[in-house]
């Protein structure tokens, strides 16, 4: 009777292609398991995502898979879910204080940032000047990815210098314009541009192309979007960070459905996928390679 | 100057209330006032006279705290008086009726009357008392306006009466009235003047600005005349004449409202004919509507429309012009039935309308004089890419500046900086520039000085001689009588009579305007 089951699938905001992909994967898995997805877009706004959860509970959903906008701000909503006795699995960002979360499936953003930092160490063993394109100020992925990057590179402050750290608000057009401004103002060219998402990285790469610096300045992004994969394949961007969002989604839905149908708790309430840096060499590990034409 | 009193002397029997010394005010390009002295005693009514742009309103605004003088001193009851804002003037008992309305259109009549001093306790308004006091203030003026109505739904005349009611209901020592009667008709003017006499009896000082000199002769004690921002002189009313006042204002003799060498109706098809026209009031279902109006105007004829405030004259004009929709009847232009759905349609048929409410319905306050004047005529101009040049606009302004005596610094000046009368002339020019076949003017000389009024009258006469059909709506009966070849009267939206020019007297018109039974349409 999985037919009658409804699962709330909630993501922080569909204005980021990353979550579009994640939601698609959740819905596909829910449908594949014979249940009905109830999709919700948090529109980057914690009260809105809370409202979505409440609407889902009103509707009487049987389970919830959600990627919380903010781990702290979504705690009360998770408590409401707990009070209603509905099982929930979280993805991507973990809410440590929440009771009754069946499991968390994720690839930590801090870990992803650290992977970027490690890649810089490996690629430039003799040190490098770095431009850091940060995400939207105050947004938790922006904070975490930045933190990861600094965790690694701050240990080698003598060799690795941040020539500039500027936000481009996760947006491609701002990635482009901020990079343009930096390229014309920095006394020396940077060796590498580390970007907190692929959109900004792709924008930065267009700026490099405009000044014939492609290849001379390396660009690494985050999220492994198809556009970025294509760019890497064609010798554009140097790399990106893969967090396996579809894998996360599938696993999360799987855990939830197994619990609902068979009352079987997962072996572990924490499933962590290790984010990896994708480059031209290991591009085949990319989850969304098939979307690249 | 041959003024019968020295400028600035006060009637010996009256204690001094206000004393102005050496007040000057400059605007960019204009010295609006230079070195004005003025005195006013308690219980005195002082007429402040002058042509359009002479500086009357500017002086009054300085007294009311709306604008600051550049130099000069003012004493009120012997104490220096420098109001920085209107509320300070009011706190000193100086109350002003401004030339341009200062009502809040979105609030009720009662709130407008009581604004800032609503009865109540602890900041809470006592609504019952507010409406009561307001109704009382209105009825003292003999008005039956519902105090709950929104001001924006009132006719211009009613709005003016609300302004007056507000001022008269305040605790005042000095009341300043800037053209309070410009939008009123005979009956309201009478009531206002009666009230002025009562206030005077209570020892309140009044400064009274008007272009209607007969009013000056009936209520004022003294007149002070300004010209180009300077004091020309003063005169005791008891010992002066209208002609003398005019001479002081314009510096030459001027025949009082002489009949215009007008119009001779040309035979043949009427330029405009309306048959059984009906309208419904769009803003207020309870207000008068126009019912079953049939009339016609020949080319070259000036048709006057007389009526009391709220008789529906404005409604009729707006309906013909397509500004409001009609609910019945037909309109014929040069014998052809036409469908007029918008002012644009009317203009295309050669009809023009000078509306009565200058500020709301005619002026583009943010734009220059030349833009304001050219707004209709540019529709007729044919040029590649619809090119409109500044030079062409300025030329237009210069053409009418002379013809109408418009006083301004430059055609590029914002129209909001012109004096009220000069604004009205610009609006008139806008329509003259279009050379219409039928021109409807609603209160065409509202706020226009005597000299210019004569010019406007002459102009309308010449238009008629050129074969244009002119419809004149005016609350000043002498004006209608002087201008029109034929006069129709309205009451409560219905035609009540028709008089040929030579037979019309103010009395006969008044009788028709207040007539109870409507005439059957011809």
């Amino acid at each position, binding site marked *: 009777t999985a037919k009658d089951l409804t699962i709330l699938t909630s993501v922080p905001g569909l204005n980021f292609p990353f979550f579009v992909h994640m939601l698609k994967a959740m819905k596909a898995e829910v449908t594949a398991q014979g249940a009905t997805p109830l999709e919700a877009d948090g529109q980057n706004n914690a009260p809105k995502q809370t409202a979505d959860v409440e609407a889902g509970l009103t509707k009487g959903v049987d389970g919830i898979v959600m990627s919380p906008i903010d781990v702290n701000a979504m705690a009360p909503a998770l408590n409401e879910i707990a009070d209603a006795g509905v099982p929930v699995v979280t993805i991507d960002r973990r809410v440590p204080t929440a009771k009754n979360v069946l499991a968390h499936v994720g690839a930590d953003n801090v870990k992803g940032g650290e992977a970027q930092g490690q890649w810089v160490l490996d690629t430039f063993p003799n040190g490098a000047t770095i431009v850091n394109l940060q995400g939207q100020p105050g947004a938790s992925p922006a904070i975490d990815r930045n933190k990861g990057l600094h965790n690694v590179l701050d240990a080698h402050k003598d060799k690795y210098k941040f020539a500039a750290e500027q936000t481009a608000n996760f947006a491609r057009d701002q990635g482009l314009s901020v990079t343009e401004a930096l390229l014309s103002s920095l006394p020396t060219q940077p060796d590498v541009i580390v970007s907190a998402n692929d959109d900004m990285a792709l924008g930065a790469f267009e700026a490099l192309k405009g000044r014939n610096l492609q290849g001379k300045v390396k660009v690494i992004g985050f999220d492994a979007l198809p556009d970025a994969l294509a760019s890497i394949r064609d010798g554009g961007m140097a790399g990106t960070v893969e967090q396996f969002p579809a894998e996360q989604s599938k696993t999360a839905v799987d855990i939830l459905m197994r619990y609902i149908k068979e009352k079987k708790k997962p072996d572990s309430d924490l499933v962590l996928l290790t984010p990896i840096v994708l480059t031209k060499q290991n591009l085949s590990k990319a989850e969304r390679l098939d979307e690249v034409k | 100057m041959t003024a019968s009193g020295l400028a600035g002397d006060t009637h010996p029997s009256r204690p001094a209330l206000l004393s102005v010394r050496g007040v000057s005010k400059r605007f960019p390009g204009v010295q609006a006032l230079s070195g004005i002295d003025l005195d006013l005693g308690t219980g005195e009514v002082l007429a402040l006279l002058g042509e359009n742009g002479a500086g009357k309103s500017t002086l009054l605004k300085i007294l009311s705290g709306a604008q600051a003088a550049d130099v000069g001193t003012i004493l009120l009851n012997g104490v220096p008086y420098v109001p920085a804002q209107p509320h300070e003037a009011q706190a000193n008992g100086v109350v002003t009726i401004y030339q341009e309305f200062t009502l809040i259109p979105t609030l009720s009549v009662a709130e407008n009357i009581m604004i800032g001093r609503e009865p109540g306790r602890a900041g809470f308004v006592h609504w019952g008392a507010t409406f009561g006091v307001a109704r009382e203030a209105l009825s003292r003026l003999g008005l039956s306006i519902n105090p709950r109505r929104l001001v924006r739904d009132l006719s211009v005349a009613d709005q003016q009466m609300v302004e007056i009611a507000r001022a008269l209901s305040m605790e005042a020592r000095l009341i300043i009235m800037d053209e309070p009667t410009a939008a009123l008709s005979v009956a309201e003017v009478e009531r206002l003047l009666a009230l002025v006499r009562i206030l005077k009896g209570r020892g309140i000082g009044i400064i009274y600005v008007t272009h209607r000199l007969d009013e000056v002769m009936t209520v004022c004690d003294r007149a002070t005349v300004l010209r180009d921002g300077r004091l020309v002189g003063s005169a005791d009313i008891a010992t002066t004449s209208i002609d003398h006042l005019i001479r002081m204002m314009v510096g030459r003799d001027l025949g009082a409202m002489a009949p215009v060498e007008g119009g001779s109706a040309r035979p043949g098809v009427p330029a405009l004919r309306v048959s059984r026209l009906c309208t419904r009031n769009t803003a207020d279902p309870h*207000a008068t509507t126009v019912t079953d109006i049939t009339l016609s105007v020949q080319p070259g004829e000036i048709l006057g429309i007389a009526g009391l405030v709220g008789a529906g004259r404005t409604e009729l004009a707006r309906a013909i012009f397509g500004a409001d929709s009609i609910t019945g009847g037909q309109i014929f232009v040069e014998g052809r039935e036409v469908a007029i759905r918008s002012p644009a349609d009317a203009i295309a048929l050669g009809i023009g309308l000078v509306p009565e409410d200058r500020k709301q319905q005619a002026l583009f306050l943010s734009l220059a004089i030349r833009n304001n004047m050219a707004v209709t005529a540019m529709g007729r101009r044919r040029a590649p890419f619809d090119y409109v040049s500044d030079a062409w606009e300025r030329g237009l302004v210069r053409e009418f500046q002379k013809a109408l005596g418009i006083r301004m610094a430059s055609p590029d000046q914002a129209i909001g900086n012109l004096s009220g009368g000069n604004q009205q002339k610009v609006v008139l020019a806008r329509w003259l520039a279009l050379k219409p076949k039928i021109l409807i003017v609603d209160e065409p000389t509202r706020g226009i000085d005597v000299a210019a009024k004569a010019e406007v009258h002459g102009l309308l006469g010449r238009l008629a001689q050129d074969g244009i059909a002119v419809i004149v709506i005016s609350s000043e009966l002498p004006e209608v009588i002087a201008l029109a070849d034929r006069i129709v009267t309205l009451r409560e939206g219905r035609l009540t009579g028709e008089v040929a020019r030579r037979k019309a007297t103010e009395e006969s018109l008044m009788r028709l305007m207040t007539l109870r039974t409507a005439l059957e349409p011809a």
Partner: protein
Amino acid sequence: MTSAPITQNPDKQPFDAFGLLARFAPLIFLVILMAVFATLQPRFLSTINLLNVLRQISISGLLAIGMTFVILTAGIDLSVGSLLAFCGIVAAIVAKGGAAGNFAGGGHGAGHGWGLALLAAVAVGILCGLLQGAAITKAKVPPFVVTLGGMSAFRGATLLLANGGPISGFDESFTFWGQGRIGMIPTPVVIFIAFAVLAHLILRYTRFGRQVYAVGGNAEAARLSGLKVPRILLSVYVLMGFFSGLAGFVLAARLNSAEAVAGIGYELTVIASVVIGGTSLFGGIGTIFGTVVGAILIGVLLNGLVLLNVSSYIQQIVIGLIIVLAVAFDTYAKSRRRRA
């Protein structure tokens, strides 16, 4: 006709169906919308869901009350979202005893009670409102520009203060103001309704309220009528600051967390509530009642479409269309009345 014209017969007016329709058009539209949702999804009308909707709108609703005052004066305040975040962070810092004592579950040693936190949030809100009001009335910079600047500046200040991250984990006496209930009614709803009633009374029955309408109806006429226009304008922005502070506090309590990125994009939602409720952006016309209806309408829309499982892309299309439709209905009803 020989009867006196109706104008002569003031006060008493006949029953006016179109007048009622015009007056309550937004409410009627809301009822219709709710009926549609209820038909398609019966759970929509459950008490718990309706209370949820009210709780969801209570934060932006508080802002909308303040915004009604602002817009009635023909002003606007784009900074509400940023100011809300700023005040929320301030409340959190006071409650936790410093930004350093960050993140969930931190020790409460140096922290203060919710009372002081609320006070601090509201005080900061009022101060910021005062600043913006002064720029508007003294430097005569248009409200749109001042509050656009404020929107950016307050957000920057918030991020600086919070050092980017959120501050979470308050004690229960604090979170009660966002998560608790009084009787069966959620606390934020109680706060929202109480302030809505109060604001209604102020606007309708006090001299200050009437002056707000007067200034919005025609500022120059109000000045010439002897009103102290700058003081009234200033008060309105101070009031908006107060509501931003209060809303920031309640939001922090509700989420048990104050975030530097809270309230982004709120300005449009809040202004939309006010405008859908029939308040004119050109000032002088509008009511708190309308604003409350407008806020509920937006809340109902968001909630109902999720309940109906409408895809989120289509949701955005539907929301856009219904907002326009609601106001078109209002306009139509009012024009019918004119014509009647």
